[in-house]
């Protein structure tokens, strides 16, 4: 008996040590953000002098040219619509694929799956040209449309898988009662699909928030830059400050970490959903 307990304690202890090792870089980042540069010059793990300050956070938030306050607002302005719209559209599309028969269905579906593999680089140059022709370069709308179009394939795939696990009987019954298909979708299928939708929302939001490449190509006005774009700008334009950079990175990370914390269950289910039947 005792041996079993010892074994468990050692096992768990080692596990916590692993966790500690994993989190060390984050601690370092935090240290760099809250301590003045001189203390860090030869190692943030030296705790002899410990002058804590929030100066870096304030500096990053109110930076003279790339304030994160503005960046966060911009990122939200993009991320919220670029999450809501594709989830709405793709949920309907996923439902459509899961419930209906129509010609060319198989080919279109395969096409959609293939798009999951596409790197953003494949559309970068033409999308720049296209958005430019539409006059939407450096316009939030342009970036939102691209993110929406980019999100629709995977969300469609995801929601279609989900809907295929739902029994059709309830819907069939409603149909017999005379309900229109649209009605059935909104009043029956959608409410049941809420957990899957939350998953899709969590993942899509995080992906859009974290995006850097599309923003890099399509947005350049200093006041419109997204939060992710401001991070590299804080390093190496003229002044680099590890403290500032660390604080900015932490602020940037906060949002997706919050999403993960609150929606963890759905977030994870969303990722596992890739392998569902």
């Amino acid at each position, binding site marked *: 008996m005792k041996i079993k307990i010892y074994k468990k304690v050692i*096992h*768990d202890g080692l*596990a*916590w040590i692993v*966790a500690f090792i*994993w*989190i*060390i*870089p984050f601690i*370092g*980042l935090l240290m760099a953000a809250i301590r003045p540069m001189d203390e860090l*010059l*030869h*190692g*943030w*793990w030296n705790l002899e002098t410990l002058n804590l300050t929030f100066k870096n956070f304030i500096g990053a938030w109110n930076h003279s040219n790339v304030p994160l306050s503005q960046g966060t607002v911009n990122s939200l302005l993009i991320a919220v619509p670029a999450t809501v719209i594709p989830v709405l559209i793709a949920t*309907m*599309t996923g439902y*459509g694929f899961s*419930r*209906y*028969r*129509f010609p060319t269905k198989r080919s279109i579906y*395969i*096409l*959609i*799956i293939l*798009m*999951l*593999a596409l*790197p953003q*680089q*494949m*559309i970068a*140059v*033409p999308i720049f040209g*296209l958005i430019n022709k539409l006059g939407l370069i450096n316009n939030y709308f342009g970036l939102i449309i691209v993110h929406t*179009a980019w999100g*629709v*394939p995977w969300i*469609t795939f995801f929601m279609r898988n989900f809907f*295929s696990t739902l029994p*059709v009987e309830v819907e069939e019954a409603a149909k017999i009662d005379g309900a229109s*298909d*649209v009605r059935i979708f909104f009043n029956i299928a959608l409410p049941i699909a809420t957990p899957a939708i939350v998953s899709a929302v969590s993942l899509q939001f995080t992906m859009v928030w974290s995006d*850097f*490449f599309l923003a890099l190509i399509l947005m350049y006005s200093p006041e419109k830059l997204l939060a*992710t774009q401001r991070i590299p700008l804080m*390093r190496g334009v003229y002044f680099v400050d590890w403290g500032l*950079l*660390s604080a900015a*990175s932490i602020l940037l*990370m906060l949002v*997706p970490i919050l999403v993960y914390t609150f929606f*963890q269950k759905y977030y*994870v289910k969303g*990722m*596992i959903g*890739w*392998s569902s039947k």
Partner: protein
Amino acid sequence: MHRKATFTHLAIFILPALLLICVFVFYPCLRTISLSFFSEGKFSLHNYYEVLKSRDTINLEGFSKGFPLGTLFHNLLWIIIHLPLTTFLGLTLAVYLKNVKGGSIIKSIIFLGMVMPMITGGVMIRFIFDKNIGIVNEFLKLFGFLPKAWTAYPETALFSLIFGSVWLWVGFSMILYSAGLETIPKDLYEAAQIDGASSMKMFFKITIPLLKPITIVIVTMTLLWELKIFDIVYVATMGGPGSASNVLALQMYTYAFKALNFGKSSVVAVFLTIITLAVSIPMARSAGEGR
């Protein structure tokens, strides 16, 4: 039971998405492909020739003289090191943390690397490997090694990025394997135990085979990530020094937006896509099976 769709149905449910995808994804793809075949206004394979010949892409001299080896090899290296490490570590951690007290907190900590924007991931990697304030050097000092600016030297720049990215990505395979482990019915293990099987045997004969579908997903997603890596390299080394840590996605970006050579950048994009499509076939097949 699939219902037959009417035009209205299609218009409402399928059309919006289809329209968006065709205009903003499918058409740009085709355009990129066509761009790759045009050089100076004429249809030609010149761009393909130039990119393949270029030392940016394949640098055979690098094998004797040292990095850079060319983006194709850099991405390949990334795959060779990163994929087995993260998959193996992920599985090990998932199994090890299965019944640990506070296991979900530990798993969340490890998963944090996945949740953050990759641009911050790049900052963290730069931070970890820094000469003065990086923990890697501090750790090595304990063993008597001298501190080194890992990302400034061509022979170590790429490796720092790769190992840093392992730290970031392990959470992904771990979480998926954890979920996969939960789906394996406990009675299988109990039955095996009754038959006198050791944990090792159970692991190899029950766990691993049953985890195959999720392994396919993990391997595919990881491969795709390794091929498309951009943000991390952009912010940590910008492909340097001397292109020693350049990757396909960054090469594509440089050709397109720095050299303004859209022909060459499209070639790189096409290569990248061919590889990613090839990689995704197993997963697409198994996804198509479940219909």
